[in-house]
């Protein structure tokens, strides 16, 4: 099986200059193919359609996580309302300041194992799929890869071939 057999064509994406407010709104209403509404991550494309980053739920969590918290063990000394007030303060931050900039991509014709390898080694949940010209054409999700594995695993007739 190839990447393009499992990929969901690109529907929604963000721009680097979008605010986090806009980004969160889009994440909430985006569709994953025909599936239920709501996404955990979106690619970020610039004006020319070039992939410049990925914005995931974790990136939003990181945006409200103060830099000093990662320097010491301070989780016991936080207070109620801290996340809410910090969330308000980052609402107008630009996507480009929060997004993950080093994006790992796969090509349409890559074999599926490449996805498995990249997902495991980089502990990521989704991979943008690019075509020969480097344009993002779709997304491939950990869940889709799992379903493909599950299908082969349960189906006794499809040994190694297909």
């Amino acid at each position: 099986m190839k990447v393009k057999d499992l990929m969901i064509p690109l529907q929604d994406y963000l721009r680097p200059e979008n605010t986090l407010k806009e980004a969160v709104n889009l994440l909430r209403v985006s569709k994953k193919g025909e599936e239920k509404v709501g996404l955990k991550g979106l690619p970020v494309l610039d004006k020319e359609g070039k992939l410049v980053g990925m914005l995931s739920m974790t990136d939003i969590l990181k945006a409200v996580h103060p830099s000093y918290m990662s320097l010491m063990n301070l989780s016991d000394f936080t207070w109620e309302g801290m996340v809410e007030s910090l969330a308000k303060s980052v609402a107008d931050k630009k996507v480009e300041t929060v997004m993950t900039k080093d994006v790992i991509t796969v090509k349409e014709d890559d074999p599926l194992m490449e996805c498995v390898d990249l997902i495991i080694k980089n502990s990521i949940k989704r991979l943008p799929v690019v075509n020969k010209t480097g344009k993002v054409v779709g997304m491939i999700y950990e869940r889709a890869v799992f379903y493909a594995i599950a299908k082969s695993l349960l189906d006794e007739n499809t040994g190694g071939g297909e």
Partner: protein
Amino acid sequence: MTEEVKAATQVVMGAQFWIATAIFLLVYGLIVTEKIHKTILAIVGASTMIVLRIITQEDAFNSMELGVDWNVIFLLVSMMIIINIMKPTGVFEYIAIKSAKVAKGKPFMIMAIFSTVTAVVSAFLDNVTTVLLIAPVTMLICQALELDVVPFLITEALASNIGGTATLIGDPPNIMIASKAQLDFMAFVYHLTPVIIVVLIAYIISIKFIFGKKMHVRDELRQRIMAMNENDAIKDPVLLKKSLVVLAITITGFITHGMLHFEPATIALFGAGLLLLVSGTKEPHHILAEAEWATLFFFMGLFIIIGGVVKVGLIKWMSIKVLEITQGNLLGTSMIVLWFSAFASAFIDNIPYVATMNPLIIDMARQLWPNFSGVQLLHHPDLMPMWWSLALGACLGGNGTAIGASANVIVVGMAEKMGKPISFKKFMLYGMPLMIESVIICMGYVWLRYYILKI
């Protein structure tokens, strides 16, 4: 005097002299531009000195006068090991949260107590380590109280440089001076701690005037601080107890090392070894790898580069020039050393500065008192104020600018990450006057204690 100076002026300025001087100037010049990392420059400069046969590898690695001062390296690395083991216990978080609660969440009280705690901790630990441990909690406390964190970060960086000046182990310049001048821990306590206490008190009063009136906090926000339980910070009480015992042994060792005729590095290495043993760690390589190797190699490289210019006579030539300017006036020389060191350290790294000044002062002493040698020369009563002036100037001078001391660089970096950049100008606006204030106090102290009271 003039006869001796004449004889001593005969520094042979051959090819070796100029090659070594060129390497020295090139490395120091490039360190200032910050285009290439200073550690890389130090390693390249040092190895070039050896490759070009300015000094031998034997001298570079084994001579205390011309090569790496292992006393300094082992003292630094041992203290780094001790801190790296203690950090995960949560003791530093505990101290900071406790301090904020003692201050009852009142802004200026927090600033004053945090500055004092920073100064005291800095007297025993490296300044950068202290700031790295106290600044994150400060940012948390300021966020809880909805206060601007910048004044707190600046005052802590300045306090850490003040506190670090108080003891032999507080700041690298003191470690270097102690090793070269063969001064023990108690000598620093006896000669520097008193004036640093005065400087610190004056500093706290000054920041009260500068920042005290501007800060107000609503009562409900103070409740956030009072609701914190500092005991939650302690993650490993067993390791903490062990660490405190070993730390107590180590500090006792420092206090008595002069009497027991041990070098400070011996005490520190013993402490580090003991703590590694009792901590029961199975993976020492983690703790060892976390030592700041870039800093340590910077020191090693510098020592060899300085060894090169000492060997070819550049430092001797410089010391002759200094004596020509001061005409052998010792009080004048002390004051020049104090003020020059302060302003030099405000703009350049005080570690290469002190590495250069140490042999320069020794050469100066050799010319002033040619009949003395060894400890008699190093501890000549008229030379002692020079060492203290050098230590006070080089350590306190770091407060002048944002780049004057590593602790300043760290807090500026942290503030920027928080989205609250501190400009060079802004830091200097607070740092420079407070630095000058502290050096004026030291000037009065050196003059009064060593030239009037002579005690």
